[in-house]
């Protein structure tokens, strides 16, 4: 008789329970787009701290920084897209809130790629001549061994203890599907990590994937995945097209509150002090007020 297959369903709080203080975690998405916010909110409810966060940064970085959970950030930018500057990130940087490894977007991609391929680095032209080299004195260059003899930056592998990503659909085994126009780098984050945790809008039967999109939409493979979390509206307030777009009124309220300590305490009490169900109920009430 066949052995039952390993199912990986867990809750967001169970994922947070597997993240240890001091770990290096990669967070998928890009800016304020398809961020695994339900998983980030679970981290905020845990006592995990001293994290090294690797991210094409958005409000994931802002929330973790505001809660004092970040020891070091590895990023090329932190932005809310429609609001260019992330207020918590700004405040943390201006008060020396954490260490920063500021990389170019391309160096970051090749660093993740190197980690996914189990290489120590990959050569890139990007960075030469810029202050990325000055502010990261540990960066090294490498000379081509071929006759061109060109010198490149050796973009160091961005190896992760854990990756957190949010996709549109997943099955219980860890296969995950994106249905929007951009995969971002979620597959790379998972491949660069020792353990990858995928939250999704809806857990489906494996056979259902084909109804939603072609095989190229199956971005993350189960061989990379440790845990699957069903988290409807789990990217809120960032975008998760085609399931939903960015919640711009909510993001504007977040940014406004973040700029003022008293307003931020109020925002935290209203939205973040409870569990995920309480968050989603408070968001629904907020939307109703604005309607």
């Amino acid at each position, binding site marked *: 008789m066949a052995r039952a297959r390993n199912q990986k369903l867990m809750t967001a709080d169970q994922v947070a329970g597997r993240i240890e203080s001091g770990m290096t975690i990669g967070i998928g998405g*890009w800016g304020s787009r398809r961020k695994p916010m339900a998983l980030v909110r679970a981290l905020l409810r845990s006592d995990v701290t001293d994290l090294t966060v690797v991210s094409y*940064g958005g409000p994931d970085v802002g929330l973790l920084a505001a809660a004092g959970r970040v020891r070091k950030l590895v*990023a*090329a*930018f*932190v*932005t809310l897209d429609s609001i*260019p*500057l992330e207020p918590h*990130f*700004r405040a943390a*940087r*201006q*008060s*020396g809130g954490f260490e920063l490894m*500021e*990389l*170019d*977007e*391309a*160096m970051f*991609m090749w660093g993740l790629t190197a980690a996914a391929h189990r290489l120590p680095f990959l050569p*890139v*032209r*990007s*960075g*030469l*001549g*810029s*202050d*990325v080299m*000055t*502010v990261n004195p540990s960066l090294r260059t490498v000379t081509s061994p071929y006759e061109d003899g*060109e*010198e*490149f930056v050796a973009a160091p592998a961005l190896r992760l203890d854990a990756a957190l990503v949010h996709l549109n659909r997943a099955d219980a085994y860890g296969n995950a599907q994106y249905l*929007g*126009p*951009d*995969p*971002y*780098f979620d597959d790379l984050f998972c491949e660069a990590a020792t353990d990858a945790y995928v939250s999704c809008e809806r857990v489906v039967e494996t056979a259902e994937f084909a109804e939603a999109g072609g095989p190229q939409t199956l971005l993350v493979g189960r061989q990379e995945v440790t845990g699957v979390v069903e988290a409807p509206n789990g990217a809120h307030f960032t975008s998760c097209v085609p399931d939903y777009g960015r919640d711009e009124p909510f993001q504007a309220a977040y940014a406004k509150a973040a700029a003022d300590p008293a307003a931020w305490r109020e925002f935290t009490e209203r939205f973040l002090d409870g569990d995920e169900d309480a968050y989603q109920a408070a968001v629904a009430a907020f939307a109703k007020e604005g309607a």
Partner: protein
Amino acid sequence: MSEGTAPGAAATRAEYCVIACAEAWRGDGEILASPMGTVPTIGARLAKLTFAPELLLTDGEALLIGDVPGLGEAARVVEGWLPYRRHLAMVTGGKRHVMMGASQLDRYGNQNISCIGDWRRPDRQLLGVRGAPANTLNNPTSYWVPKHSTRVLVEKADMVCGVGYERAAAAGPSATRFHRIPRVVTDLAVLDFETTDHRMRVRSLHPGVSPERLREATGFPLDVPADVPRTREPSAEELRLIREVIDPRGLREREVRP
């Protein structure tokens, strides 16, 4: 009610800026025009609708669009797929000419969008370096400055994100191999680096701007010859496309204040 300029009215400063941005992509051929900001976006679309139909444009997300919609309108034709990973590959492959913004820009074209002050604990944290280091070393990178002032055109950029000419030269042949800054378009003038030592020079002054005003608004010595050309006039057809097709709501006038 349209907020745009009345048909037949003389070109506004913002419209000269659109023309100057469009001109940056003239002769580029079949490459991606990556405009950042409202005026460069109008400029790229104008170039595509007129003298540079080969240009590729995105919807600002992951799609290459086959038509030229007005600002804020959705494209009806998709001709390709350009998610971030392929976009970054297009940068390093060189088939792209980006027009970036700049919080600071110095006389050699070193650009800063990361932070103001000491990087270790900045006075003002901005975006971060983003793709500026890769852009400048791999594909032509122009700049758009909607408010030319001594705060932006500075003696020295606090954190060099986009690499300028003298820094690229100091970094060696790998850095200079594909490095080029074709244009800097501001609300006062068009500038470039076509001098023997690649110091910024004035390519043209926008109509209505005096040499003194340009010099005063620039934070480093800038030679403005008496016979410096004026930015060219838009044609009647270009003005119609800007005002009626690409930007009927007049968003350009919010980015460039008279």
